């Protein structure tokens, strides 16, 4: 059972429908993450005592995970480049590298949280830690979701099917990277 999609490209926008949809998703993500981070910023400024809690986050772990995400963004964009050239197998391989990056990120994050929770810093310890776990948790959920979707896309791409989706998941992935680029100074560097 198949029927042609109604439109794959909007005349008036000049953007393929899928890509436009990704931009809309990201626009709503901007408000979700932006609202969370803006609230955090307001509270940090209004409550100097939060700095006492923030000293306990581990800058090195945060920096390492930033490195991991930047690298995974790099492999994602290389996958896009390969897909543009019609090299589905290569694109799939870059997507797999990106998924490995996501797995590393989540693994490191799990260790970090395990360490903090076992030292008594939990989501209810105080408002700083509530924000910390909420923001980083929502972000980690996005990392996991992205990695799963990327798995499906890589499977198709290896067969040279739906290569344009490599770019779409890439755009989402870079956004997740950008969110972390802001979370890193907010949660780890501002002490």
């Amino acid at each position, binding site marked *: 059972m198949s029927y042609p999609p109604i439109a794959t490209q909007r005349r008036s926008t000049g953007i393929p429908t899928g890509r436009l949809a990704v931009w809309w998703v990201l626009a709503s993500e901007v408000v979700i993450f932006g609202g969370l981070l803006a609230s955090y910023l307001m509270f940090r400024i209004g409550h100097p005592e939060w700095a006492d809690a923030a000293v306990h986050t581990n800058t090195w772990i945060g920096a390492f995970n930033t490195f991991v995400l930047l690298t995974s963004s790099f492999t994602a964009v290389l996958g896009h480049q390969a897909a543009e050239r019609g090299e589905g197998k290569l694109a799939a391989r870059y997507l797999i590298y990106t998924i490995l990056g996501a797995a590393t990120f989540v693994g490191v994050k799990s260790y970090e949280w395990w360490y903090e929770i076992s030292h008594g810093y939990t989501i209810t310890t105080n408002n700083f830690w509530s924000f910390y776990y909420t923001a980083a948790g929502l972000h980690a959920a996005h990392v996991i979701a992205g990695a799963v979707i990327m798995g499906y896309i890589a499977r198709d791409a290896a067969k040279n099917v739906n290569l344009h989706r490599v770019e779409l998941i890439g755009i989402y992935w870079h956004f997740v990277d950008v969110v972390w680029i802001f979370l890193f100074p907010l949660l780890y*560097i501002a002490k």
Partner: protein
Amino acid sequence: MAENIEQGGHGGDQGHGGHGGHGAEHGHGDHGHHINYKKIYLVLLVLLVISVAGPFLGIFWVTLLTAFGIAIVKATLVVQNFMHLKIERQIAKWVLAASLLLLFLFFAGVAPDVMKHDGAGWENLAAKAVVDAGIDSGEEHGEEGEEHDEEAEPEPEPVVAFAPDQAYSQICSTCHGAGGRGDGAGAAALDPKPADFTLAEFWETRTDADLVKVIREGGASVGKSAQMAPWGALYDEEQAQQIVDYIRNTFVQGG
């Protein structure tokens, strides 16, 4: 098959870009451009190193600049080059700009209330008290495992020990009144007014557990006025109980 048609539709996306004839990249008029991804990636890594190194200088504005200034630069590099926003159609930029605008509206509307703790005719006593308590006691520690935490040096006990009478006179009396009659300076603006702690009837109709709950979780937690803020961040259960005892012993008449 729908999937193939979808793909075909994308292939037809030759609408803009106009960078024909650039060697290696072809078949995709949309992104026929040359961005040196490797270079961007290396620049991002250098920026990361700077943002981690910056705070070691211990100069406030350097930290601010290296942390947040660089975050903005990094994000811009990723958005423009990896997400290709710089060569994306205008509409995508408008969509993003609209949501950023909403975000700033939210910030501008909420920030004054959250970032400031007083203003013309209002004072956020709860927030101020939390700031003071946080700063007085130095650090908020986790509950267990402190002894394993290399970073946390043994902290001296807070200099100001908890005393229920001081707590009452510093914080509660503004509304509840120095004599506990619910006639403090702050009560003039309150509706409903705080109850009269001096009445025996007050104490007969409430259990200590009720009162401790109100003090720690606020009036709203038991269906009373939210003007009675939650003070649980300041007082644990035992301390709240001590305050209740203090109020009873000090104000109640004929009970």
